[in-house]
């Protein structure tokens, strides 16, 4: 969403906000966490599922509704829950009498992580050094990526070298972990938004393959 317009103003934070305003929200959150495991997927695949929700599923049910809808997408794609099964059961819970689709054949991805979490050890040296000028590749991959659109094709400076981690772009599609270094790259606001921008810097954690040496 970086840099998009039309979302309105912010307001001073409230200090008394409950963690879950309604009981179902906590259960939807927990169901999401459990569904990642039940569907045999991973955190990157779950983010990619979230990105593929339609606008209504992403926005109209609120934040935890989005997590619920993401869980549904992962579970249907892994053949754990049939498409439409949740809505059919929900209708029956409220007194309707509709047919529920049978449970499908499980089709979990053929995938196992190389280790816990996302951090990995790599034997190569980092390709870029702290203080080095780099440029993000201007790419628009059809699948998942963690290179934000607003930072594509821009030059910045390596601020910190972070530990190597699983590459989301391939891990989200169960195409291997491709562990590599992650760099916190600092961009000047005017490089990203033009000469009229507020003066500030923005950093992002970028995977090695998102970057090339800036000339």
């Amino acid at each position: 969403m970086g840099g998009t317009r039309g979302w309105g103003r912010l307001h001073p934070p409230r200090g008394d906000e409950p963690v879950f305003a309604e009981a179902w929200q906590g259960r939807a959150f927990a169901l999401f966490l459990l569904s990642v495991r039940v569907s045999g997927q991973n955190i990157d695949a779950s983010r990619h599922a979230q990105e593929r929700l339609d606008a209504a599923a992403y926005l109209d049910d609120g934040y935890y509704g989005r997590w619920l809808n993401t869980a549904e997408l992962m579970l249907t794609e892994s053949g754990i829950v049939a498409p439409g099964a949740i809505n059919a059961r929900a209708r029956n819970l409220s007194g309707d009498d509709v047919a529920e689709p049978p449970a499908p054949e499980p089709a979990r991805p053929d995938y196992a992580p190389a280790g816990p979490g996302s951090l990995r050890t790599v034997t190569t040296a980092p390709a870029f050094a702290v203080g080095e000028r780099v440029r993000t590749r201007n790419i628009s991959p059809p699948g998942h990526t963690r290179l934000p659109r607003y930072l594509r094709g821009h030059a910045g400076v390596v601020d910190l070298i972070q530990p190597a981690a699983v590459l989301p772009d391939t891990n989200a599609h169960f195409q291997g972990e491709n562990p590599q270094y992650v760099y916190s790259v600092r961009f000047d606001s005017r490089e990203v938004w033009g000469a009229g921008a507020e003066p500030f810097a923005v950093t992002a954690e970028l995977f090695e393959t998102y970057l090339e040496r800036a000339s």
Partner: protein
Amino acid sequence: MTATSEPDGRIPPALRTEALEQLLTERGLIDPKAIDKIVTTYETSVGPLNGAKVVARAWTDPQYRQRLLEDGTAAIKELGFSGSQGEHIVVMENTATTHNVVVCTLCSCYPWPVLGLPPSWYKDPAYRSRMVSEPRTVLAEMGLELADDVQITVRDSTSEVRWLVLPERPAGTEHLTEEELVPLVSRDAMVGVAKVAAP
């Protein structure tokens, strides 16, 4: 259309949540007790009080502060805090002239072990979109006016690295103990959208 539907035909998410829980439970794929446990954990034991303890320790123990800034994950673990969404935590210090503020433009990445689940404003599309393009304006709307000479660095959490802001200790708190400082440290200051106010 039934009584369960909202005007646009969508089934309320509360009902859909109950339906999914039933579907997975009756096939033995999940245990409802596991759901209870997750909900209770994030409602009671994982929240911004953890981060406040880290900050208060750093304010009162210079050696801890140094360890925290050098290896946030390890220093935070010293106080017993680790787990999901805290695999690698980097701590940045806010001062009178440098201000860090954290956002996730791609989703809602947030350092759960020290701050719990994110508040509503952190997940607001307006925050996610505008913090990386006009942070000074956004912070002012949220009630934090920064002087023109303060350098702002926005931290967009795009990987599994998580950021925690070490806020500036407010003047006039020199006599307070670590325990007395803890309740002063707000979640908002540890994300960088507020400063810690003196009591």
